[in-house]
C-alpha cells in the first residue's frame, strides 16, 4: 500500500512544510512499508517537483491543470482523491496549513478515512494505529487511534527533521476528472506578500507587541528579522489596532508557529499569545518589565528597553556572521 503526500507550493516553489510531510511519509514507509508517492496540482516546474525525491518520494504525480494553481478547496480535494485511488494508497500525509486542513477534511469523508491533525510524531503501529497529536493549542497532547482502513495525517511543523538525501523522483502527469461544480467557489483575486519568509513556515520568527509603541517603530523588528532570516509576527493587540496586518497575528486565535527560535519584543506574554508559540524550540524574550509573564515561558531573557536592546542585538548578530 502506498503513502500519498499532498504537496503545496507558493511562488513557484514546493513549500518546506510539504517537504517535511514527504520526509514524514518516508519515515512512516520505513516502518510500515509501501512506496511514497507525492501529488502536486497546478503550475509548478519539473525541477521543483523532483525535489520531493530528496525528501524521500519515489514518484510525483503532477496534475498540471492551470485552474488548480490556486487553492480551490473542493477541486483540490477531488483531484487528490483521484490520485489516491489511482495509486492504491491507504494513507495520505500532508502539512497542516490553511489549505491543507480544508482539503484533508473533505478527503476524510470521500475516502472514509480517519483524519488526525497536528500530528507530532510517527504513529505507533503495534497492535493498532495510534498517533500523538497536539491539542488545546499546544498545551497538551492526545494519543488518538485511527480505526478506519484509510488514514489521513496532517503533520505539524517540526514533527520530523527534513530529509535531504533521498533519490530522484520520477514525475508523471495525471489528468484529474473535474467538473464545473468543483470550481463553484471562485477565487477572484489574491493579496499576498511576496518575497517574504512566510510566518507559519519560518524557522525563526521575530514578533513585536504593544511595547513597540507604534507601527513607525517596526523597522527595528524588520531589521532584526532580516539579519536572522526570520519572518515577522505580532501580538493580538497590535493587529487589532491595525499596526500590523492580521496574517501576522501570532496566538490562540491567530497563526500558531513552531519555529526553532521565537524572539518576542515588547510582548507581555498573555496566555492567549503563549498558546500560539508554545511549539517553538527556543524562546527569547526582550521586555523592560521584569515581571512580564513571558519570561516564565522563555529560554533566554533580556530585561531592558527594546529601543536600546534590539538595535544592539541586530548589530551583534551582524558582527557574528
Amino acid at each position, binding site marked *: 500500500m502506498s503513502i500519498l503526500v499532498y504537496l503545496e507550493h507558493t511562488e513557484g516553489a514546493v513549500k518546506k512544510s510539504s517537504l517535511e510531510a514527504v520526509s514524514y511519509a518516508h519515515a512512516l514507509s520505513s516502518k510500515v512499508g509501501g512506496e511514497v508517492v507525492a501529488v502536486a496540482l497546478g503550475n509548478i516546474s519539473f525541477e521543483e517537483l523532483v525535489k520531493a525525491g530528496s525528501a524521500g518520494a519515489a514518484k510525483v504525480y503532477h496534475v498540471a491543470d492551470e485552474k488548480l494553481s490556486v487553492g480551490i478547496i473542493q477541486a483540490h480535494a477531488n483531484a487528490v482523491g483521484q490520485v489516491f485511488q489511482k495509486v492504491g494508497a491507504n494513507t495520505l500525509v500532508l502539512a497542516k496549513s490553511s489549505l491543507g486542513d480544508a482539503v484533508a477534511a473533505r478527503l476524510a469523508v470521500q475516502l472514509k478515512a480517519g483524519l488526525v491533525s497536528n500530528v507530532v510524531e510517527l504513529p505507533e503501529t503495534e497492535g493498532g494505529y495510534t498517533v500523538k497529536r497536539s491539542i488545546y493549542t499546544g498545551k497538551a497532547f492526545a494519543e488518538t487511534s485511527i*480505526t478506519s482502513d484509510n488514514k489521513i495525517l496532517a503533520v505539524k511543523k517540526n514533527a520530523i527533521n527534513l530529509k535531504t538525501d533521498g533519490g530522484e523522483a520520477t514525475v508523471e502527469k495525471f489528468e484529474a476528472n473535474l467538473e464545473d461544480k468543483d470550481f463553484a467557489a471562485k477565487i477572484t483575486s489574491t493579496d499576498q506578500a511576496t518575497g517574504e519568509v512566510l510566518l507559519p513556515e519560518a524557522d525563526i520568527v521575530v514578533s513585536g507587541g504593544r511595547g513597540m509603541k507604534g507601527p513607525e517603530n517596526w523597522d527595528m523588528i524588520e531589521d532584526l528579522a532580516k539579519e536572522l532570516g526570520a519572518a515577522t509576527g505580532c501580538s493580538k493587540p497590535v493587529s487589532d489596532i491595525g499596526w500590523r496586518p492580521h496574517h501576522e497575528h501570532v496566538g490562540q486565535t491567530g497563526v500558531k508557529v513552531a519555529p526553532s527560535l521565537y524572539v518576542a519584543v515588547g510582548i507581555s506574554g498573555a496566555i492567549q499569545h503563549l498558546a500560539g508559540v508554545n511549539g517553538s524550540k527556543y524562546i527569547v524574550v526582550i521586555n523592560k518589565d521584569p515581571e512580564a509573564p513571558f519570561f516564565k515561558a522563555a529560554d533566554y531573557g533580556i530585561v531592558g528597553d527594546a529601543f536600546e536592546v534590539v538595535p544592539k542585538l541586530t548589530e551583534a548578530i551582524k558582527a557574528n556572521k
Partner: protein
Amino acid sequence: MKILVCITHVPDTTSKIQFTDNNTKFDKTGVQFIIGPYDDYALARAVELRDQTGGELTVLNVGEAETEPTLRKALAIGADKAIRVNAFPKDAYFVALQIAHYAKEGAYDLILMGRESIDFNGGMVHGMVGELLGMPSISPVMKLDIEGQSAKMAREIEGGKEYIEVDLPFIAGCQEPIAEWKIPNMRGIMSARTKPLDVVETISDETFSQVNAFQLPPAKGAVQLIDKDNVEELVRLLKNEAKIL
C-alpha cells in the same frame, strides 16, 4: 435567509489544562466553559447578516446536557433557536455526520462555524460537512458579505488573503476579524430563556478515530537572564547552546 451556526462548548482560553482518571478525561474542576472563540465570531457575523437580510438564525451544538448554558448564551447573543444533538462529540466525523443531517433537514442557505475548536484544534468539521452535503466549504474566512444569492468573502492564506465569490448555499469556517464579538445585553438574556432549545438524538454512531489518553508537555526550565548591556552573550548562547545561529 436561513442560517445555521454550529458552536463548540470549550474551556475558556485562560484555563489550566489538566486531566483525571489516569489521563483519560479532561479535568473540569474550576474550568469555565465558553462558546468557542472562533464560533463566537461566526455567530456575531450571523447575527449581523440575519438582522440585515431577515430570516432565521439557528445555533447547533453536539454535546451532552452540560452544554445547554452555552447554547442559551448564543440565544442571548441573538440566535432565534437552538438545537442540541444529545451526544458526547466522539470525533470530528461523528460531529460532522450529525450536523450534516440536521443541516439538510433544515435546508439552510448558509452554515457557519469557527475555523477550529480550541480544544482539539482539528479544523475539519466544516470541510467534512461540506463534503457530506456536496456543498463548497471555505475556511478560514475573515470577511463575509452576502448579496442576494451569492457571497463575497476573504479567506486567510499564509502571508495574505484571497478573495472568493460563491453562490449559496455553502459552509464557512470563520475567524477574526469577520465581526466583533457580541456581548449579550439584559434584553437578550431575558428573551433567551423562552427561545426554543430542541434536544434531538444522533442519527449515526460512526467514528473513524478515538482518543485513548492525554499527556501534558514536559515542564519548561527556568529562563536564563542576560544583561542588557551584554547582548553578545545572547548571540553566543544562540550559537553554541541552542545551535541556531
